[in-house]
């Protein structure tokens, strides 16, 4: 691989502790202009069989993106983030984002790294399985 290696296989991301709150969820709903009641109305969520108001899945994708961007610390940019939603996360409950570099390679003359990610709930179970691709540099500005 040419140049200095900016990423290292096995390098860890996090743990990043977060507690998505109702205000953040409502701002997300406003950003999307979509307001399913189970995101902000406790009674409506329980009426649909949920244990409480839920953190929207796409909000968690953005939180993964933020965690990867912070981990990069200016070394590169985020080419891809994807997430598989396995379990709901409740608003106001703590979650942890954790990840690890699983592959470092070169493509198009640029160093890239693949990361496996997870959002882990307070029971220690993954609520989201994630994956990201980052690339060294600034994306060809």
């Amino acid at each position, binding site marked *: 691989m040419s140049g200095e290696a900016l990423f290292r296989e096995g390098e860890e991301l996090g743990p990043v502790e977060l507690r998505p709150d109702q205000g953040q969820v409502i701002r997300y709903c406003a950003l*999307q202009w979509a307001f399913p009641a189970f995101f902000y109305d406790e009674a409506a969520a329980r009426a649909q069989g949920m244990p409480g108001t839920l953190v929207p899945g796409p909000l968690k*994708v953005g*939180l993964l*993106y*933020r965690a990867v961007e912070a981990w990069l610390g200016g070394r590169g*940019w985020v080419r891809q*983030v994807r*997430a*598989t939603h396995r*379990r709901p996360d409740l608003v106001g409950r703590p979650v942890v984002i954790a990840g690890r570099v699983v592959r470092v390679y070169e493509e198009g003359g640029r160093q890239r790294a693949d990361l496996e990610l997870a959002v882990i709930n307070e029971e220690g179970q993954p609520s989201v399985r994630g994956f990201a691709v980052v690339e060294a540099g600034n994306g060809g500005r």
Partner: protein
Amino acid sequence: MPEESLLTDEVRALVGRETRLGRVQVTARAFRRAWEVYAGGPPAEVPAEGEPVPGYVITGLESESEAPVFPDLLPNSLLIANEWSFERPLRMGEWLEMVHRVTDVRERFGGRFGYSIDVLSETAFFDAEGRLVARSGRTMTQYSAADAAGGGEE
């Protein structure tokens, strides 16, 4: 579980059909709003014209239009996966053309949802020269809560 596949020729014909959703601009307002959602407060500064902005700004851009509604084949639906991918960083001030497409429809048998149908769709963002800049994809699963096995991993 239905006696026959719900993926009729009419439903399958929706796969690959493109819908132009119009143009959207990466604005300081879009940046500020997305930042407040994901970072939890107002940004200290806003990128200048032509500077890169975080990819999560795509969330607000998508909501500037409404994608065509996929028919309800089963009574319940749930988001099971999301993906954002970028050919290059989004840039402040640029205009992007949004094109929506259903990329696949799949039947599933068994698992936590019982018989279910996954609908994969995406919004692609193209720059003024028609080059692909980004994609925002999602997988919705349609299922019948009455037939679902309950929570837990698939």
